[in-house]
């Protein structure tokens, strides 16, 4: 097989942070190569280097065996590399017609005169569309681009990329906004491109898609290529390499606790419009760990329980009573708390002190007739700092100024202090150092021991094994495994996660 694009020994660092180290990658003509990696593994950096967004890397890029210089999006396109980014809405230009969108780059570059009539543009666009077997009529091409559905917008962006007959097409999670049927259409389209000899680099977290499309699979972790396979793939191996084998040293130095009383009951709950419904019971006096890759539905589940998102279908019971939260305040008043995934965006108020951050959800408790009880607030802040061993100068310190681990202690601690009945932690260990992770794990386990239902969601197997009594594996919105932590192993979990639908 002839290689279309070859990447040799590419390294890149942001300041002292080495994001890619000696990456070698060969992408063959007329085939799809899938790129798999966790968040922060270096996938997007690699894509951005290939599409010319980053130029301060070392190493070589060869196209058809010849070294090329790629230092801007323009040179990348000129070299024959086209990229379709994940966000569809960032790719279309609102207010222009479909035809103008299709030819946008050529209009901007001056290749097509700026004063040319719409008729000429529509004719030109029609040629491109029909060459790609898109059955778009002239009147459709004359429409505003917003009249296209999301799948058609996706096709438009693809068509635009293809109109320059690229040698390599990079697709970054192209199905994230598409339905199953739309995805299948896209795959047919991609197969067709392969037969035209175009090399495709496909980035996705959905293993079933990779299984269906790709001939080759490349796994990246911590900026290095860890595993390369040709179809048929060993998913077990791929996932192990993707998630990494971290030091397994002090695993499980706790006694499992066996909750039996049901706290939260989910009945017929669907996490995505097209995923299947499931029932689930979350027990009191136990840490339930939910594990799944990105897009498996972890955050969706957390937000639904917390009332931050609406339930697509099904219903919930908490403590035996119907529980229908329409707003996070409903959850909070039922003593169900959530530590969201993204600390800075979803938990912290810029320039707020530890004490203020701690009391925000409980302002009613910390005020009399509306007036804030400064003394109680300050005591609560101090308690939080002591209790969770937050490293800081005082409880008046601004949360933004703390390290990631200590910020996390604050946003976890503020809920712990207010007697939760159920506590949900979404990726509580992301961007948290090992010391803080231990502290938080311990506190969460202690909490569960006091009769609380604790739910920890993460994509890292070791993180979950380190904290949970019961383990649930989610794949594409479906529960595929539900066992006691003591009766399973990392091997088995990874196996389940890699089960392809």
């Amino acid at each position, binding site marked *: 097989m002839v290689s279309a694009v070859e990447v040799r020994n590419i390294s890149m660092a942001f300041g002292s942070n080495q994001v890619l180290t000696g990456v070698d990658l060969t992408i063959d003509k007329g085939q799809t190569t899938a790129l798999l990696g966790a968040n922060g593994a270096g996938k997007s950096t690699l894509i951005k280097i290939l599409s010319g967004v980053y130029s301060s890397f070392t190493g070589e890029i060869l196209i058809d065996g010849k070294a090329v210089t790629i230092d801007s999006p323009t040179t990348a396109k000129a070299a024959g590399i086209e990229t379709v980014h994940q966000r569809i809405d960032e790719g279309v230009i609102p207010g222009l017609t479909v035809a103008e969108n299709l030819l946008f780059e050529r209009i901007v570059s001056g290749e097509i005169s700026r004063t040319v009539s719409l008729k000429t543009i529509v004719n030109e666009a029609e040629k491109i569309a029909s060459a790609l077997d898109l059955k778009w009529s002239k009147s459709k091409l004359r429409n505003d681009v917003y009249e296209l559905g999301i799948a058609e917008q996706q096709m438009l962006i693809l068509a635009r990329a293809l109109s320059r007959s690229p040698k390599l097409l990079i697709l970054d999670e192209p199905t994230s906004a598409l339905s199953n049927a739309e995805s299948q259409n896209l795959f047919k389209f991609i197969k067709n491109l392969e037969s035209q000899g175009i090399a495709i680099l496909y980035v996705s977290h959905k293993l079933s898609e990779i299984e269906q499309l790709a001939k080759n699979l490349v796994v990246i972790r911590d900026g290095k290529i860890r595993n390369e396979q040709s179809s048929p793939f060993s998913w077990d191996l791929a996932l192990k390499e993707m998630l990494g084998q971290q030091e397994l040293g002090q695993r499980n130095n706790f006694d499992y606790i066996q909750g039996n009383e049901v706290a939260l009951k989910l009945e017929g709950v669907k996490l995505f419009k097209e995923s299947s419904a499931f029932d689930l019971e979350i027990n009191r006096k136990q840490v339930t760990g939910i594990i799944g890759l990105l897009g498996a539905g972890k955050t969706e589940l957390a937000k639904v329980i*917390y009332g*931050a998102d609406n339930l697509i279908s099904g219903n919930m019971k908490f403590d035996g009573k119907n529980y229908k939260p329409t*707003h*996070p*305040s409903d*959850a*909070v*008043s039922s003593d169900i708390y*959530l530590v*969201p995934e993204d600390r800075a*965006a*979803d*938990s*912290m*108020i*810029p*320039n*707020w002190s530890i004490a*203020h951050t701690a009391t*925000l*959800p409980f*302002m*009613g408790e*910390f*005020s009399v007739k*509306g*007036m*804030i009880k400064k003394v109680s607030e300050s005591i609560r802040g101090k308690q939080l700092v002591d209790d969770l061993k937050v490293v800081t100068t005082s409880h008046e310190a601004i949360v933004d100024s703390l390290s990631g681990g200590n910020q996390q202690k604050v946003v976890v601690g503020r809920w712990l202090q207010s007697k939760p009945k159920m506590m949900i932690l979404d990726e509580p260990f992301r961007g948290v150092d090992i010391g803080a992770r231990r502290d938080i794990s311990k506190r969460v386990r202690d909490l569960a021991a006091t009769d609380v239902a604790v739910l920890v969601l993460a994509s890292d197997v070791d993180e979950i094994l380190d904290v949970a009594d019961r383990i649930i594996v989610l794949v594409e919105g479906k529960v595929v495994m539900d066992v006691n932590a003591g009766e399973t192993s990392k091997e088995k979990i990874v196996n389940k996660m890699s089960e392809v639908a």
Partner: protein
Amino acid sequence: MSIGKTTATTGFDLRDFIVKYGFILVTVILFVWFASTEPTFRMQNTLFSMLKFTSVVAITGLGVTLTMVVGGLDLSVGATAGLSVTLSAMTMVIYAQTGPVALIVVLLGGALVGLFNAFLIVVLKIPDLLATLATMFTIMGLKLVPVDGQSVSSGLILRDGSVAPGRFTEGFLLIDRAYIGPVPLPVAIFFSLAFVVWIFLTRTRWGRVMYAIGSNPEAARLAGVKVQRYRALAYVLSGVFASIGGLILSSRIGQGDISAGNSLLLDAVAVSLVGTSVLGMARPNAWGTTLGAVLIGIVITGLTIKGFPYYAQDVVKGLVLLTALIFSFTLSRRKSRFVPAV
């Protein structure tokens, strides 16, 4: 930006000092300059009349400040104050009602405008600036309909040829003219409201939550805060504050001048923005808005006494605002997040 770069070791940071105290310093310097060069400026009467003059802008600005705290901006305040002038005149002159009735009608009118803004923003999801801009035009036009586009004063000839039966009551006119001890009533109202807003924003749970919403609405929501209710509350309060400003204005003019309140919007927004830079807080606050209003009052009174032409006022207001924005955005190390995106 070399200011203050090397001073960290000496314990004194010029840039921080300027950001924190620059505005207060400018106010004091200007005050001393006017007072030492213009004997009339020193008189108590001049001081109080300056504060009285600035009270309408200040009170309206306090309302704008509340909307800025929740991350919005109310552009309809000038129009609301203008509406209040017309409403009060209609109530007393055309419908021959008493002063207290006029007062209630005006306050209700202000609250209603606020509710309408809240409806546009919270329910119809129109961006704050655009929604309140639409409200501004709508009420500026709407208030002219019942009065056939004329200013309302006693002796007005009505549509059916009869003479309007009522007039501005003595009591109503006293709102602007009365004194509490040596302090003019509008100044007393201004300071009381400033104090109340200050307490509300810094000491009560509602104020605290409103700041959270302005800085990170999603984090506030996920902490269980009913974000939309607080945003609605801010606009209702802003409408009420603007109508209080309008009451004082109406009492001062003594007739339903249809152009009243037209210039108020820019002044009120300006003092709120100036206020964000006071003490380097880089966020809207009651104390800052008060000081901003007083500063602009001092400058305008001083320049008027010094014989500058009236059109110099806007230039000066513009420069004051610009300086404040430089303090808040360019020099401050804190991130300012109080200006809404359209």
